[in-house]
């Protein structure tokens, strides 16, 4: 019938249009490809949204491109929650070539084939300039899946006025660090002065619960056993560490508003700045704000200790993803960024601590607080290898979530240290068994 055009034709036309549009849309989503016109090899590097660091990476990238004709490097920003961001991009084969990744995040991806072995591109002399713990972050038995670029850790910050009022001179040498008992004695006096609490701990989100693990190691315990896989939070040392933490809150030395799951970012820093605590165990990120808001009224001492020393493992490594179409080139870029000279420049510009042991604060040439930065560098030597292996292990993201749950319950007093240990172990075993 000429007056009734075939509906199949229209449907086919529609489907054709849909197909063409979908193809176009998918092509548009493809991220621009990794080999451009004229054979240019594109590399994408993703970093946290820190303006200074983006500038630093771009400057190194420009040098890399100049030395490698026919390449281009784009610096991108990692958005949202890291695992969500990375897993979805890996699934779409659109992950950036190079990612900046924390030690606590790298384990899963090194184990499941999402990261590429870059040992062929990393010069042999790099290993010699890294401590065993820092090298272990990216190294596995079958290759190197990341190179640690910069670190940070926890030391003790104190309010100078408060210390003067209680007549205490905080220790300065690592060997003289306050033991737990000494720290609690000082804390009780600090609480008298502030009228509120004594100290805070530098968690900033549930994902940072692991920052409390040094306490377990300071007491001779460990999160995971020697094999780096067996849960070991049921040892007397680990349970005693939980009891020590419980004491902070039971005696009102720390506020229950300062836990890993507390919202609002770094609560301890806010408490310190508002004079509600006189000490905090925290990382170098606080320095800039302390300089601005309470200049000359803060000082630092080593991280507390007990039978052993330990501090938090902070910082980032660089790794090459399986999405990379030019993994050798990307690995070369990682090697360049983690070279001694580039690390020195990066740490200088971004006020970071170097991962290489041959660099100290004078080499870096920090604009300010050189002594404090050197204290952090020295404190970095106390980060234990067993803790590094646990935190950069395959299951750590899940184990850290379990640790956050039961540490929270223990510190709040909803579970005794022994009960928290038992339930934590059960949950940890279910993670490692799966």
């Amino acid at each position, binding site marked *: 019938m*000429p*007056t009734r*055009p075939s*509906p199949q*034709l*229209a*449907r086919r*036309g*529609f489907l054709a*249009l*849909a197909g063409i*549009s*979908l193809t176009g*849309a998918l092509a548009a989503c493809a991220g621009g490809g990794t080999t451009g016109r004229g054979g240019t090899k594109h590399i994408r590097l993703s970093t946290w949204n820190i303006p200074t660091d983006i500038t630093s990476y771009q400057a190194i990238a420009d040098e890399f491109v100049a030395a490698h004709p026919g390449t281009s490097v784009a610096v991108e920003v990692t958005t949202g*929650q890291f*695992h*969500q961001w990375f*897993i*979805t991009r*890996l*699934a779409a084969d659109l992950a950036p070539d190079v990612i900046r990744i924390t030690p606590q995040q790298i384990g*899963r991806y090194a184990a*499941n*084939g*999402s990261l590429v072995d870059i040992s062929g591109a990393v010069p042999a002399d790099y290993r010699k300039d890294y401590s065993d713990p820092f090298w272990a972050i990216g190294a596995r038995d079958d290759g190197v899946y990341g190179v640690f670029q910069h670190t940070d850790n926890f030391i003790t910050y104190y309010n100078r006025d408060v210390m003067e009022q209680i007549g205490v001179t905080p220790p300065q040498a690592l060997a003289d660090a306050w033991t737990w008992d000494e720290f609690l004695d000082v804390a009780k006096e600090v609480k008298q002065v502030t009228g*509120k*609490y004594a100290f805070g701990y530098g968690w900033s*989100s*549930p994902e940072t619960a692991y920052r409390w693990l040094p306490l377990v190691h300071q007491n001779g315990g460990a999160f995971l056993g020697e094999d780096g896989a067996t849960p070991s939070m049921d040892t007397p040392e680990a349970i005693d560490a939980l009891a020590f933490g419980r004491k902070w809150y039971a005696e009102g030395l720390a*506020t*229950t*508003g300062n*836990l*890993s*799951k*507390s*919202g*609002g*970012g770094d*609560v301890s820093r*806010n*408490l310190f700045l*508002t004079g*509600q605590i006189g000490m905090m165990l925290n990382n170098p990120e606080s320095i800039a704000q302390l300089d601005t808001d309470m200049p000359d009224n803060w000082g630092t001492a080593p991280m507390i200790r007990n039978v052993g020393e330990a501090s938090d493992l902070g910082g980032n490594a660089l790794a090459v993803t399986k999405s990379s179409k030019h993994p050798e080139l990307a690995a070369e870029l990682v090697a360049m960024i983690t070279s001694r000279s580039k690390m020195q420049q990066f740490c200088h510009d971004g006020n970071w601590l170097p991962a290489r042991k041959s660099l100290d604060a004078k080499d870096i040439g920090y604009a300010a607080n050189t002594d404090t930065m050197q204290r952090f560098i020295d404190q970095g030597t106390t980060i234990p290898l067993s803790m590094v292996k646990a935190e950069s292990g395959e299951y750590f*993201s*899940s184990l850290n*979530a379990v640790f*956050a*749950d039961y540490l*929270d*319950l223990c510190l*709040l007093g*909803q579970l005794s240290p022994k009960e928290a240990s038992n339930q934590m172990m059960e949950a940890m075993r279910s*993670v490692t068994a*799966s």
Partner: protein
Amino acid sequence: MSLRAETAPVRTTASTAPPTGGLPAGGGARRSRGRFVPYVFIGPAALLFLGFSLVPIITAIALSFQDSSTSLGDGTWVGGKNFVDMGSDPLIGTALRNTLVFTLGTVPTSMAIGLALAVALNRPLPGRSVFRALFFVPMVAAGVVVGVIMSWIFNGDYGVVNNLLEALGLGRVPWLTAPGWAMATLVVVVVWTRIGFCMVIYLGALQSVPAELKEAAAIDGASRWVRFRTITWPLLRPTTSILLILNVVFSLQAFDVIYVMTGGGPGFSTTVLIQYVFRSAFIDARMGYAAALGLVLVAILLVFTLLRQRANRKAEEML
């Protein structure tokens, strides 16, 4: 009249062209184009639905029958194992219970306050538009932003709420650090973000309630409350039903504010189901299990919606 006179011939010409086989030149092509036009208009929406709803839904269903513990897309088929595993997962019960408490706390409260505000603002008031806009602003604010700001406002040690309470001689409240208080605080925050939405929807419905009915009742001596109860409220029933379903959906999907303000804590006291889905997927990397949990959430919503619709139909039949 003049408009009708001008447009009528055009319509007639178009619809009664003689099917003589000798169509005017271009007529068939125009008709073909005419039939094609609707598809062009629905095409983009259909593509979006296909790409961002239908395909992900089918993928999620497929994923729920896989063990995808390494990364997305690398799963192995495990049948109904993920659903069976839920039976022995101790956190599921806690998450479901918290979800129920959170939903019961947020949905009726935000609807009741939204209705009260709508009734109050459905009459001439100085600055009425400003009030309407102010109540609606929290709804359009990003959940993460709301969460961060509220974390500060309700902080037990330096939050403005506790400072105010202390200034008034009242004690400080552990808003976010005691299990019972934390859930209550979240409910308050979410209700605050949601009342503007309920208010706007109820306002629209109130304006369609025939004024003559209320006037007639008033002439018969009905009080304001009686007029509301016997005329306005029954006529708002379809709107209430839709709002109820939407609010339940919002509450079951509430993630960002809880994630930012309490992280599911203290302990597990504010861990809700959607948060557990996220944790299973992106912290534990158990994509298949997370997809199965997501389907359970969808099933709960579906059952609730069907029950609500059936109840609504019965109520309408009784009117």
